[in-house]
């Protein structure tokens, strides 16, 4: 860790009670001038988590409403990809490496945790670069990095690939499951399936995740105010950030503006991190990705370019990996939740057959999933 940055800088000041209460006051006053209800979709599961954990809805007037979006890399992972991870982990001489919560998500055969209990060598890392160390310590093993996440985590996967190429390490492979945010936001507004009228008009504004924009810049959201007439505020993850961002959105509505604004000026710029974007362009191509509950969304996924095929676990293990699609549990309405047209308590098995200890859908597995957040913190909230 960087020496100049102290751990406490991560949160200090952004949870100040007086600031939060002051924003609550401003929003309450402004909201009286709205004359209608506005539904704000937080695209990202990190925001859902903050909103629930800090009880933000309790501070807001009735005409400001949150709807939860599809932005958690665990929640949107279709079962066949989880099965792929499971199968890969059980191949001979394989060490499967991934990030955090992914270990708990049930596929059709079980979760990586179950694979581990069966003897698979599954490890999670904090930084993908740790794969290099694991690969060097286990020269006779194949280390497969099961890469997940939005724009936020993609550059780290690039750095790993870059290091593997440069250092000519020949036992690290990749299973890429990266996705990008703007495409799915567009899909939520644009798509023409049976739900269209119910949710198309529901989203009045977006909270954009700041992590994503640290990398990609705020520019990726430009189309939403311009083309779709939905204002966007790129916001940080602390309660003060969220309150300030909501206040900015409300102000846009009462002043009749529709713009892209940045609340999280501490790290986000319009252009983002150019170097990270270049790396992503160098190693990845845009492909169709099947989002769990949302279906195929063109160009919303990333895949290794063909010239890196020798590192691609999907190529190397293509004979054992699943190709058929797998349906989700019939009762699970994660899909509707990820679209913002249902809330977790609408699900008939919420909190009964489906709990964090016994999840049926991944919205209950991931700590960033809407169902888990509701289950953990939500019962008191309005």
């Amino acid at each position, binding site marked *: 860790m960087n020496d100049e940055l102290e751990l406490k800088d991560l949160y200090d000041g952004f949870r100040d009670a007086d600031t939060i209460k002051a924003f609550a006051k401003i929003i309450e006053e402004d909201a009286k001038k709205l004359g209608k209800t506005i539904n704000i979709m937080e695209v990202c599961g990190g925001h859902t988590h903050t909103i629930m954990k800090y009880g933000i809805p309790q501070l807001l007037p009735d005409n400001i409403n949150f709807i939860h979006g599809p932005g958690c890399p665990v929640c949107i992972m279709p079962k066949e990809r989880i099965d792929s991870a499971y199968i890969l982990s059980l191949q001979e001489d394989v060490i499967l490496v991934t990030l*955090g919560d992914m270990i708990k998500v049930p596929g059709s055969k079980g979760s990586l*945790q179950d694979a581990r*209990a069966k003897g698979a060598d599954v490890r999670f890392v904090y930084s993908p670069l740790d794969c290099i160390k694991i690969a060097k310590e286990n020269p006779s093993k194949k280390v497969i990095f099961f890469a997940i996440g939005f724009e*936020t985590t993609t550059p780290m996967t690039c750095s790993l690939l870059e290091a593997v190429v440069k250092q000519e390490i020949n036992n690290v492979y990749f299973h890429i499951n990266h996705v990008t945010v703007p495409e799915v936001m567009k899909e939520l507004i644009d798509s023409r399936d049976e739900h269209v009228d119910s949710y198309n008009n529901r989203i009045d504004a977006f909270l954009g995740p700041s*992590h994503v924009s640290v990398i990609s810049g705020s520019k990726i959201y430009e189309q939403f105010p311009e083309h779709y007439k939905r204002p966007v505020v790129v916001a940080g993850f602390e309660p003060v950030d969220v309150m300030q961002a909501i206040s900015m959105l409300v102000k846009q509505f009462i002043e009749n503006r529709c713009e892209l604004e940045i609340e999280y000026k501490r790290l986000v710029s319009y252009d983002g991190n150019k170097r990270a974007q270049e790396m992503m362009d160098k190693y990845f191509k845009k492909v169709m990705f099947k989002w769990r509950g949302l279906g195929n969304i063109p160009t919303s996924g990333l895949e290794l370019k063909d010239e890196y095929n020798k590192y691609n676990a999907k190529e190397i293990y293509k004979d054992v990996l699943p190709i058929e699609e797998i349906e989700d549990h019939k009762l699970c309405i994660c899909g509707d939740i990820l679209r913002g047209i249902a809330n977790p308590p609408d699900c008939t098995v919420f909190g009964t057959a489906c709990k964090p*200890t016994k999840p049926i859908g991944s919205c209950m597995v991931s700590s960033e999933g809407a169902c888990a957040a509701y289950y953990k*913190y*939500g019962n008191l909230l309005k």
Partner: protein
Amino acid sequence: MKTVTLAHGNGGAENQELISKVFYRAFKNDILNKSEDAAIIQDGSLAFTTDSFTVSPLFFNGADIGKLAVCGTCNDLAMMGAKPKYLTCSVIIEEGFEIKSLEKIVRSMKEELAKNDAIVVSGDTKVVPKGSVDKIFINTTGIGEVQQKGISSNAISEDDVIIVSRDVGAHGATIFAAREGMDINTDLQSDCASLWIQVKALLDAGIKITALRDATRGGVSAVLNEWANQSNVCIEVQEEKVPVADEVKGICELLGFEAMSLANEGTFVLALPKEEAQKVLDVLAQFDNSKNASIIGSVSQAYEKRVVLHSPWGTKRFLELPTGELLPRIC
């Protein structure tokens, strides 16, 4: 529940499920069913407990597995108002383990025994082939003499307040920071310590304690949830009153954890009548590792068997029993 997963050892919900469905079902009896920190036997005169210790890394800031193994068992006795007296110590060692490390571990055990004025009276050693265990596992079992009877997590009422003895989460955060691949430089130290010394001071001061528990795996949130459950009450905690070190907060921020769910090895939670609270703070203030003890909450009937956390800006939410293996979040 088909196979045992690591989540079954987390001190939270899955752990309880495993214990009740497998072990309690087979072993049930009146003493075990009380599920206190230590069993009270011999007409209430003795406390009896056992614990096994595995930790990675074996040596970390503020303690090592040896110190843990003595503190853990002695603290379980202390939490029943008992003075630790006799321990057994049995170790399972992986072939290839360095004698030097073993000696270091045993030395810390010895130091910690002295602080409790307890002795090891019996033991056992097994060596197993490489790969059968992760370096070394230690089991300690202890017997203590009960000094104050009637301390129980089943007896908390609206007359009580809740006190925590020091800042929470230091042990869990230290272990996470020390794990491979974290690269966090911190001065953070495990809170690992023998608690009998403080408990004795409280008893000597004549304080009537309702319930006492050290907040090990599952942290303070597990203790409070168990208490709310066992005593049929709602425990309401003021978040800003819970002491958390800056570095622990930072690590929680990085990894997406809650400080109150992180493990401790020398932090305890007390429930006792309101009138006694100030006296407790005065006694605890004399000790280095409990000088920032704090009254963190009260007891009500608002939400039966639940723990409610109040934020400084006026919102509230439940504080759940931790679930799952503690895993860092994705981004």
